[in-house]
């Protein structure tokens, strides 16, 4: 049996759409639904008391404690050994429940990531931007060669056996945002396998508008400071610990956010005005830039609110990282299949690739990413280090002579490294 856990903060129309979709599940085993109303009046949940459903439906009320507490409470109330988390703005396809059950029958003890196809309710540029973000979040999940990270656990649509949920340690109640990332980090650190649940398609009816997006970014800024306090190794995996985007406006957004005052507020309002003007003139590139900077501003304001002072933020960003793990070395001379088999036997967290003893690349340890599997090797070589591989092949005489002149003389194994690390991240 399976329990669907749905936290809600009062979106009755969305809840009715979700329940209708769950009532249309095809060839699904019996399942129950636990709705946790988080600070919502009974008449605002969106469930008609007289309605009849082809599943057991229970509604639990609690004070407004946040999504993490609501999901934990839902699990406490759930009776099944398999948990499916859905947000109330998700509309699963008729095959969703069956797909999750089948996935867990094949992958014992795994976390299953479901699909979230964006269907934003906002129109215009903001709707397109929202859809783009969600698509990037879910990009590549369905590819069996995908390397999962803590960001791939999206509680809007995922499933796991109850023992996994308990062993990983439930959702952190102190986080009001990014509690799914935090849970994902612990799950990956515990060695829990992740997988994409083929066939579990779902639409995500995101109703967020610009003010909601900026509020969310503020919350993410706060949450990231808390995340790093719990898991210091995550610093460089979050915007908090990474370099600023290129361009003077990115630096200005950062500085303005950390120095509240009239100038800072003026900068923020200018960005919001620019967004309206650029959209009216259908200047997409400028609009995207302005939106990025407005979100940067909101994010760093959230960071500042949680960290305390601007000096604290700078100190946090400048913190010295703990040493990373030594990479395992694989040589490609004996073939990629052999190299992949070696990786699968060892499952390293960091990898050095050589060809005939010549360095090709180093994939450093990436906290929050699953241990490296053999299937990760070829995408890494093609998408991130093709030049380094060709250069190494030239050095050991494996590159066809006619192509040798195409390898830039200066290109060595380290040149693509900076770009490579960023692209992998």
């Amino acid at each position: 049996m399976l329990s669907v856990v749905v936290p809600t903060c009062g979106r009755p129309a969305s809840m009715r759409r979700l329940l209708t979709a769950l009532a249309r599940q095809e060839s699904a085993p019996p399942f129950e639904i636990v709705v946790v109303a988080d600070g919502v009046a009974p008449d605002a949940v969106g469930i008609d008391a007289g309605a009849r459903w082809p599943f057991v439906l229970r509604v639990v009320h609690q004070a407004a404690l946040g999504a993490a507490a609501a999901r934990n409470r839902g699990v406490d109330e759930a009776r099944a050994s398999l948990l499916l988390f859905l947000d109330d703005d998700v509309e699963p396809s008729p095959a969703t429940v069956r797909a999750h059950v089948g996935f867990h029958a094949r992958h014992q003890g795994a976390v299953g990531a479901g699909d979230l196809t964006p269907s934003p309710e906002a129109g215009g540029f903001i709707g397109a931007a929202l859809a783009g973000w969600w698509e990037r979040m879910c990009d590549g999940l369905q590819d069996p060669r995908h390397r999962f990270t803590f960001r791939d656990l999206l509680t809007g649509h995922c499933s796991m056996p109850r023992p996994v949920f308990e062993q990983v340690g439930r959702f952190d109640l102190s986080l009001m945002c990014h509690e799914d990332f935090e849970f994902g980090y612990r799950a990956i650190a515990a060695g829990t396998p992740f997988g994409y649940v083929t066939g579990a398609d779902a639409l995500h009816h995101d109703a967020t508008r610009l003010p909601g997006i900026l509020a969310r970014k503020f919350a993410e800024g706060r949450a990231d400071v808390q995340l790093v306090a719990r898991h210091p190794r995550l610093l460089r995996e979050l915007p908090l610990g990474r370099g600023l985007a290129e361009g003077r406006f990115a630096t200005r957004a950062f500085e303005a956010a950390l120095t509240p005052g009239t100038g800072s507020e003026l900068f923020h309002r200018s960005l919001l005005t620019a967004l309206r003007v650029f959209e009216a003139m259908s200047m997409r590139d400028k609009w995207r830039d302005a939106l990025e900077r407005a979100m940067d501003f909101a994010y760093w304001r959230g960071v500042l609110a949680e960290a305390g002072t601007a000096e604290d933020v700078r100190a946090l960003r400048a913190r010295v990282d703990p040493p990373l793990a030594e990479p395992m070395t694989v040589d490609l001379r004996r073939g990629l299949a052999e190299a992949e088999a070696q990786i699968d036997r060892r499952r390293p967290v960091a990898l050095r690739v050589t060809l005939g003893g010549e360095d090709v690349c180093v994939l450093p340890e990436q906290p929050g990413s699953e241990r490296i599997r053999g299937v990760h090797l070829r995408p890494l070589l093609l998408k991130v280090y093709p030049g380094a591989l060709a250069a190494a092949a030239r050095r050991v005489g494996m590159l066809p002579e006619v192509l040798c002149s195409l390898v830039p003389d200066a290109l060595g194994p380290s040149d693509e490294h900076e770009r490579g690390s960023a692209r992998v991240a």
Partner: protein
Amino acid sequence: MPTAIRDVDLALPPVGLDRLDGAARCMLVVRWRGRVIGRTVVPVAGGRMSSEDVSRHVTAALDTDALATWVEEAIGFDERASPQQPRPSATVAICTHERPDDLARALGAVTSLSAPAHEILVVDNAPVTARTRSVVAQFPGVRYIVEPRKGLNVARNRALREATGDVVAFTDDDATPEPAWLEALRANFADRRVLCVTGLTLPLELETTAQELFEEHCTFARGFRRRVFDGRVDNPLAVAKVGAGANMAVRRTLATAVGPFDERLDAGTPTRSGGDHEMFARILLGGWRIVYEPWAVSWHRHRRSERELVATVRGYGTGVYAMWTGLLLERREFAVLRLAWRWFRYDHLPLLLSPARLLAPKGRDRLRRAELAGCLAGPAAWWVSRRRQAMT
């Protein structure tokens, strides 16, 4: 003098080229194990070229994109889809209007694909003779459909309605796809956000000055590296680099996702072209993706006479401006004004400022002049086409 066209595969031992008599130049199409990775046009003297000369020219013409092809092949990795992901079934559709000789060649190519199509359709658009029907009758299994309403986009929409494959691959009646063409297109639909895939189109022949000018002035080729155009990231209105309708595949559900091809645009209407680019823009504006796949190679026979060439180039100008007019007036896409200004500023204004170029009787400047005339006619053509369609 004509330009010869020859293949050079770098994975094979180097060879010289002969039987180039009568050619002043040779277009070397460079391949790696059959896949096109570059091309270059080089002078020919004495009707032959030594293997050393071929190697020298080819090496000078390649760039690092060729390395990526070698890496991809060397490590046996296909970024398009994992081997487990199924390929969609594909209908091949040829929209034609009274070009039976070209059509016969195109049908010969699409019935000899390395992986056969799910079905092949020929949409005979507003036929005035029975010649097209006769040609199709020579190819068993090819479905013949008459679309009486004139217009290339009308025919494309008819093909979408008639097709039963998951994707519909369009090729022009004057194009000749290579055997691996359809497989290369299909492989890119594993990403469900991909609504359209375009391919690499090269000239079938460069026998006349008009064909050489066409290839030089408005080639269909868009490079030798696969690219993904994402409406969420890239400028959805800058679609010239995406590809061309002569070599494209779309999901059959295209009309549901973003609407059918705009029947006020393209050949057979006053706008004369632009129907494919308008669809590319609409796909990207809808947030979908288009892939440019250079492994999907097709050879296009360009117009042979200068008169046809000038008319074609003028038609391209008309089509682009007609498309932009529609986007501006109906979708309020003010960004097309910036595109129009940039095109005018860098291509047409220098022409207007130079009387010698403006009055040039031949060559590139004459084409630019025809293009500019077409651009100026574009808005009115869109208006007339719109009225005509409203009346029907």
